[in-house]
């Protein structure tokens, strides 16, 4: 397949507050229960489906001595039990952090146990109920070793991040932090911690494997279909072209469907051995250990400012838990310092090995934990300086990264703060803690900033336009609810000069060319560029100009006439796009899904781009029983050109609610003695429910910000929850005079002294 990297100059497109708020292309399918998710798809072969059920380790560290399968095998209907002894060798994967596609580098069905909930077997039976019962009947003898649960275990292993990591991370160290803090007019010195959290999309992790001759079809939800294809081909030792992965839509992901778990290969393996399709759906609790999580973190922040509020010194040490086998770690402070650009910076990052499943990306992974620390410290600093917390932030407007010196394409944070404060009614806030009240409820206001860097990703697509002026756009991007299919249809329609209803975008299938990895808010900044290139190729063949420019005829008529002139029924064009500064082989590499190493932060010329925003929160705390409620939350954001304001608003509201739940409810509880999660279901792992959300507003400011991609689009799905936890903690301080420095911010924290 001929592949050309195309980096066309940015065409003229509308810039401003946005395009049309059209409904989701698949909306009707979603409200009528059509089969659009992986486990719903009809099977392409007429063979009875068998059901896989995962068998998990109940210990965290040790070795399997023996698996007693007799009782399970004796159940009528049990077809196969895969174990380390019966399955034979299936290759391991490299982790995503190391340039591969896997959740973990532990080998499939290893008899060595690295964490509780490791997949140690798979039962396959005629029906789901029998497979489930058989799994309970398998008894395992282990040689168990003492395991480390988390930071404070004697068996935990502390490593300097920059030495242990494989991704070229370096701790930041510029200027003289100690001197700056010594000379500062006010200094905050605090420790913070955040908890383990799990993505818990409502769609379970399912895999259906179907063999058609020597070709393998996998129905599985994914954020990155080509990675899933690559991993499966590797583990099944077959050519990648013989594997097709499919799921038209994904039932939520948030990071946990970005990487590949062993269930895929085991299911494919079982299907091959049995000669019939197999479906394995991890149960909710199994999902807690096969698909990564946000790991717990600790922070030590020292923050100093001069009397004008200008930050002079910023010291932030970070500790993160990873697994025994793999290193997963977030960035240090190199992202955070973009917010306020302090002059003197010191950071040491540590990764702490424990006997846990490998962590991974979870919505806004690099910012959520450290931003809780930084933005809480900013609030405390404002009090020490006697300054309004909004004003303190505004006085630290940054225009270049203080570590790298790279300037920004724009900084809209102060505009967001101004508009947010105005719409929220920040001026009504009496800054004195414990000064506001309504009936039995203490009232507090809090604020925090947020940001997210623009990341972009190479991708390829096919556009077919037929002579009836109908277009079909195909790319293996993942629509996880962000609306990828809809916005691509909009961009194609806009470029071709057709109504959006004349364009259908198909995603989620490796039968299409490689799409954007749906993570790091990359879809909207990346995928539309390819759509424009593809549309322009078609238009060129038809002798038309983009978007109907210089032509006042109806777009559909214009297109039909052009086809008639040319005398063809259809035109199909493939286009590929890579972010500026990509490596030469970026496009070929998308077919091999080289993971995180393909991802590039945008550097247009010598600039870098960010989406910006802030959250304003009003909390209420009951004077006696001290439960905390968010009465109001307001977010003001900018994210360049908005293709679809309706979808953008939905995503921002969703991420603000993520911020609320993540701050106040969500914590995966570890039994440190047994090193196992104990609240691994949706009753005990609480996420926000409808009743938790009261007044909420997401306000998108127009942003004139150019030259980092063709439409000047930034991603915004990950930004909304970056600062929410700190905004809530700051509001709780304002209401009660109590600083909550350990997440979650819940009523248990309100009873450890007699403050109220």
């Amino acid at each position, binding site marked *: 397949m001929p592949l050309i990297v195309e980096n066309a100059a940015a065409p003229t497109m509308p810039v401003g507050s946005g395009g049309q708020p059209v409904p*989701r292309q698949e909306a009707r399918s979603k409200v*009528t229960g059509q089969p659009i998710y992986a486990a719903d798809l009809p099977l392409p072969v007429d063979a009875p489906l068998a059901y896989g059920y995962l068998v998990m380790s109940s210990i965290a560290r040790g070795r399997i001595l023996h698996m007693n399968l007799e009782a399970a095998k004796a159940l009528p209907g049990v077809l196969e039990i895969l174990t380390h002894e019966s399955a034979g060798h299936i290759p391991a994967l490299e982790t995503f952090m190391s340039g591969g596609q896997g959740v973990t580098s532990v080998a499939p069905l290893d008899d060595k146990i690295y964490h509780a909930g490791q997949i140690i077997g798979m039962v396959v039976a005629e029906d789901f109920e029998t497979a489930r019962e058989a799994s309970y009947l398998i008894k395992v003898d282990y040689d168990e070793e003492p395991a480390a649960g988390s930071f404070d275990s004697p068996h935990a292993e502390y490593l300097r991040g920059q030495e242990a990591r494989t991704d070229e991370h370096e701790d930041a160290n510029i200027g003289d932090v100690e001197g700056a803090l010594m000379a500062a007019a006010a200094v905050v010195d605090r420790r913070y911690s955040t908890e383990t959290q799990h*993505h818990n999309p*409502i769609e379970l992790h399912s895999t259906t494997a179907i063999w058609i001759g020597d070709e393998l079809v996998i129905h599985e939800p994914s954020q990155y279909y080509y990675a899933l294809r690559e991993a499966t081909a590797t583990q099944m030792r077959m050519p990648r072209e013989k594997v097709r992965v499919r799921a038209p839509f994904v039932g939520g992901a948030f990071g946990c469907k970005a990487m590949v778990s062993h269930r895929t290969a085991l299911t494919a393996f079982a299907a091959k051995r049995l000669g019939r399709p197999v479906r394995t759906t991890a149960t909710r609790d199994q999902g807690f250990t096969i698909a990564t999580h946000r790991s717990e973190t600790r922070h030590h922040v020292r923050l100093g400012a001069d009397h004008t509020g200008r930050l002079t010194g910023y010291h932030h040490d970070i500790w993160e838990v990873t697994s025994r086998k793999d290193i997963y770690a977030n960035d240090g402070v190199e992202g955070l310092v973009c917010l306020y650009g302090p002059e003197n910076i010191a950071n040491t990052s540590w990764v702490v090995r424990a006997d846990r499943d490998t962590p991974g990306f979870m919505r806004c992974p690099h910012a959520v934990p450290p931003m809780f620390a930084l933005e809480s410290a900013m609030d405390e600093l404002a009090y020490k300086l006697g300054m309004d917390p909004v004003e303190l932030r505004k006085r630290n407007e940054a225009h270049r990264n203080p570590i790298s010196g790279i300037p920004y394409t724009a900084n809209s944070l102060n505009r967001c703060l101004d508009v947010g404060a105005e719409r929220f009614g920040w001026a009504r806030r009496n800054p004195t803690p414990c000064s506001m009240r309504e009936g039995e409820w203490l009232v507090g206001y809090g604020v925090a900033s947020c940001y997210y860097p623009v990341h972009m990703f190479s991708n390829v697509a096919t556009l077919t336009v037929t002579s009836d002026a109908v277009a079909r756009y195909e790319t293996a991007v993942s629509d996880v609810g962000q609306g990828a299919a809809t916005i691509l249809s909009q961009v194609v329609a806009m470029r071709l000069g057709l109504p959006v209803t004349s364009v259908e975008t198909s995603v989620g299938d490796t039968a299409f060319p490689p799409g954007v990895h749906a993570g790091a808010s990359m879809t909207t900044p990346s995928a539309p560029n390819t759509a424009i290139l593809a549309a322009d190729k078609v238009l060129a063949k038809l002798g038309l100009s983009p978007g109907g420019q210089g032509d006042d005829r109806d777009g559909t008529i214009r297109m039909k006439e052009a086809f008639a002139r040319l005398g063809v029924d259809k035109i199909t064009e493939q286009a590929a796009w890579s972010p500026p500064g990509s490596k030469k082989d970026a496009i070929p590499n998308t077919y091999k899904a080289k993971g995180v190493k393909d991802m590039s932060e945008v550097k247009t010329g010598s600039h870098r781009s960010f989406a910006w925003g802030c959250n304003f929160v009003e909390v209420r705390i009951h004077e006696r029983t001290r439960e905390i409620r968010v009465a109001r939350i307001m977010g003001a954001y900018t994210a360049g050109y908005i293709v679809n304001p309706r979808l953008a608003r939905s995503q921002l509201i969703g991420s603000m609610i993520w911020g609320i739940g993540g701050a106040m409810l969500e914590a995966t509880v570890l039994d440190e003695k047994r090193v196992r999660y104990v609240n691994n279901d949706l009753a005990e792992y609480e996420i926000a429910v409808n*009743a938790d959300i009261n007044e909420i507003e997401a306000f998108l400011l127009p942003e004139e910000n150019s030259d980092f991609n063709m439409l000047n689009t930034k991603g915004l799905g990950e930004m909304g929850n970056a600062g929410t936890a700190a905004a809530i903690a700051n509001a709780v301080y304002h209401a009660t005079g109590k600083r909550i420095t350990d997440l979650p911010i819940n009523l248990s924290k309100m009873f450890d002294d007699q403050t109220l």
Partner: protein
Amino acid sequence: MDEESKELMLLTVTAQPDKGGETRIVEGNRHVSVNLDINGRQYQASVDIRTSLLDTLREHLGLVGSKKGCDHGQCGACTVHIDGEPVLSCLSLAVEVVGRVTTIEGLAYGHVLHPMQQAFIDHDAFQCGYCTSGQIMSAVSCVHQGKAENVDELKDFMSGNLCRCAAYPNIVAAIKAAALKMGA
């Protein structure tokens, strides 16, 4: 208890407890035949006696609109109606279901969407859409039970349907809008 055995028997009793009466005995371990009235059609399936209504719909009858998000009655994605009342199909055994089942596939009037379905589209009351079938089934019950008039009651009623994309404010807006049309 014998670890290896999986014999299971279901006895349905319909009389008063101490006056004797009818019993229906569903034997057994292997597959049993169930007859279900779903969306106005009669279905028959041969299922393991422990099969949930949800798995019967999805895995045996090809009605995949109802979703499995937890399999333990905790997320609400599997909500269907039985005789018009909301029920978690994952916690119902197919063999014990009595009554008319309505799933998301049976809500529209032919090609005309139910007002609640249309309102969910109009208000972008979903993102990934996976919880949507359950949300809509609960939302219809919310209006029927008169809980859509007061927003606090509405939100409380809908709190048994988790939405991880957190479309809650849009769901509330959709239900309020649909309630006006359903009442009319």
